[in-house]
């Protein structure tokens, strides 16, 4: 793998450069009257309509995780990996339900982060901080996952990782991230919103070509499913059981369903997804996008099938074995062996740019959280808008360095488990963030204690679960009462039971509760405050 293909490399380099230019140019796109406001840097001025929101959310939610880890899981375990399809089907009806309420209350009260909403809803600094820390902690491995995506492309191209020197090996990744950090710092959310258009062009072209061209070269779908099935039925020497199955077995149905449901419930409370939702111009934009975003789900389903195509390609299997059995290499290797080098270059670009967009949005979302819920809440309650924006810009840099550390230090064989660990944590904020959109019944201390118990339970369970050659954090599913269940679901149920029980107790002993800063009308409010509406209205009312 030491030989670098010049054509593929040239195409990747040109697309990376174009995206860099677009990223920096985005600072001048839809210019704000006063760019030094967190609304502007962190939410793109809260002015994105249906069209831009579609690209932004699509670019945000369907990440390098999609392109690398999902087919890798399908490549390794078969049908079980398709839970990602089921999960991204369920997520849209779910966001349809609560997305508009969250958007409305955030618009009415000027909230930029989910932490601020919880802080305002319960008048509780502690609960706001809990949600904030969880968000930042869960986002870090998610950004790292994007880096792992870039890494596997670079590895297949023979860049970097073939060098024995650790510094040289990581250099391309570090350079890519420094540039990403540069335009995110300058342009804020406008940069990923604009780059998302390019990202999607690359992804749609790659997927359509792959799904038509590769099966014809491999002898059709019958051969692909046949080869996959033959592999999955064979016995894994490490476990003494088959590698997987072509259709989920009855014993695996519960794990499949809970993984899909847990991931779907978690997705839209991730800070970066909330950022995408809050950047919408109107309440209706979110519902309309819930109907239009499933187009990406279809693409995800097709991408998952790339895992089987990789399995049916002997050269890919040899390459994965040569790479130490790293299934993450399967899709880049598939492109390398099946596509002419220029098309492989486009495929690599799709993955790399597909990693940059969400990484940018995630670091912005985490920076918003830090600024509003830690810096302003604890250190500078009277910070000006300009100070807030400056702090957020710096925080986005720190997040990226942290994620780089995460990516370079941790085991990368199953990067999907990193994200699933983040999912376990983030789902523990579901009662405080989502259920609170509907009811203020819970007591703030009960929610905090429930959250702490859920996080502790989930982390310990994940720690105790071996798998993938590791003793700890090997998988995110564990048996509960005889059913193998996604740990996040079990943990959030424990969390809810504690929160409900303690709320009853605290209400009974009349423990003082916090002040609710929101009003019922906030949850169905639409349109912008008059000033913003006037500025944006001229655009939306144009024929």
């Amino acid at each position, binding site marked *: 793998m030491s030989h670098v293909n010049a054509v593929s490399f040239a195409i990747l380099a040109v697309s990376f450069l174009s995206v860099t230019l677009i990223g920096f140019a985005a600072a001048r796109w839809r210019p704000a009257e006063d760019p030094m406001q967190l609304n502007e840097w962190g939410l793109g001025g809260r002015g994105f309509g249906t069209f831009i929101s579609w690209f932004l959310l699509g670019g945000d939610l369907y990440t390098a995780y999609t392109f690398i880890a999902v087919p890798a899981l399908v490549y390794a375990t078969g*049908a079980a990996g*398709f839970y990602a*399809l*089921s*999960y991204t*089907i*369920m997520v*849209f*009806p*779910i966001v*349809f*339900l609560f997305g508009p309420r969250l958007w409305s209350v955030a618009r009415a009260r000027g909230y930029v982060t989910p932490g601020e909403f919880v802080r305002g809803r319960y008048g509780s600094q502690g609960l706001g901080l809990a949600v904030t820390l969880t968000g930042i902690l869960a986002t870090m491995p998610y950004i790292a996952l994007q880096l792992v995506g870039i890494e596997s492309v670079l590895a297949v191209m023979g860049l970097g990782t073939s060098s024995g020197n650790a510094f040289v090996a990581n250099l391309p990744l570090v350079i890519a991230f420094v540039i990403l950090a540069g335009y995110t710092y300058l342009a804020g959310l406008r940069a990923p919103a604009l780059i998302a258009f390019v990202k999607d062009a690359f992804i749609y072209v790659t997927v359509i070509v792959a799904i038509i061209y590769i099966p014809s070269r491999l002898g*059709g*779908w*019958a051969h*692909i*499913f046949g080869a996959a099935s033959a592999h999955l039925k064979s016995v894994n020497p490490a476990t003494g059981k088959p590698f997987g199955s*072509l*259709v*989920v*077995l*009855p014993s695996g*149905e*519960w794990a*499949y*369903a809970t993984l*899909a*449901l847990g991931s779907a419930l978690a997705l839209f409370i991730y800070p970066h997804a909330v950022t995408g939702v809050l950047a919408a*111009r*109107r309440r*209706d934009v979110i*519902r*309309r996008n*819930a*109907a*239009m975003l*499933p*187009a990406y*789900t*279809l693409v995800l*389903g*097709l991408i998952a*099938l790339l895992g089987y195509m990789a399995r049916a390609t002997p050269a890919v299997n040899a390459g994965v074995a040569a790479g130490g059995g790293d299934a993450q290499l399967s899709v880049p290797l598939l492109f390398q062996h099946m596509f002419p080098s220029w098309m492989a270059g486009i495929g690599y670009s799709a993955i790399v740019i597909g990693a940059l967009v969400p990484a940018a949005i995630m670091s912005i979302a985490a920076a918003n959280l830090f600024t509003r819920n830690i810096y302003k809440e604890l250190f500078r309650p009277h910070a000006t808008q300009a100070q807030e924006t400056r702090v957020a810009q710096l925080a986005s840099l720190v997040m990226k360095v942290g994620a780089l550390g995460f990516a370079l230090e941790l085991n990368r064989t199953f990067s999907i488990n990193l994200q699933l660990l983040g999912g376990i944590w983030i789902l523990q904020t579901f009662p405080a963030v989502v259920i609170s959109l509907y009811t203020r019944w819970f007591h703030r201390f009960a929610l905090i204690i429930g959250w702490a118990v859920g996080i502790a339970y989930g982390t310990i369970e994940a720690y105790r679960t071996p798998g993938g050659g590791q003793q700890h954090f090997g998988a995110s599913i564990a048996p509960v009462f005889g059913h193998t269940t996604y740990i996040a679901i079990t943990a959030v149920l424990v969390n809810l039971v504690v929160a409900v029980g303690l709320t009853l107790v605290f209400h009974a002993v009349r423990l003082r509760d916090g002040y609710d800063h929101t009003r019922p009308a906030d949850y*169905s*409010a*639409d*349109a*912008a405050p*008059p000033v913003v*509406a*006037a500025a*944006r*209205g*001229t655009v*939306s*009312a144009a024929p």
Partner: protein
Amino acid sequence: MAQPAPPDSRPIVRGVVTVLLLVAIGGALVVPIYARSRPKLGDFPFFYWYQLAWVPVVAIACGLCYILLRTKPARVDASTNGGEVQQ
């Protein structure tokens, strides 16, 4: 405030929307529905083509719910006076 009741508050609309969204979620959540290999569509086992086919079903369900919940009178206002409505 002098608006006709927004669609969110009409019980029939709310009921229909809830059912549509629950069916959309259920079709993916209830795994035994599709954890089988037959009937095949072309060379695709049922497990795969069902899930891919369920995607547009969910999109249409969400689209219908969007249309049902749309605040019509306000949208007419929105196009004439620049979105400054619906307080």
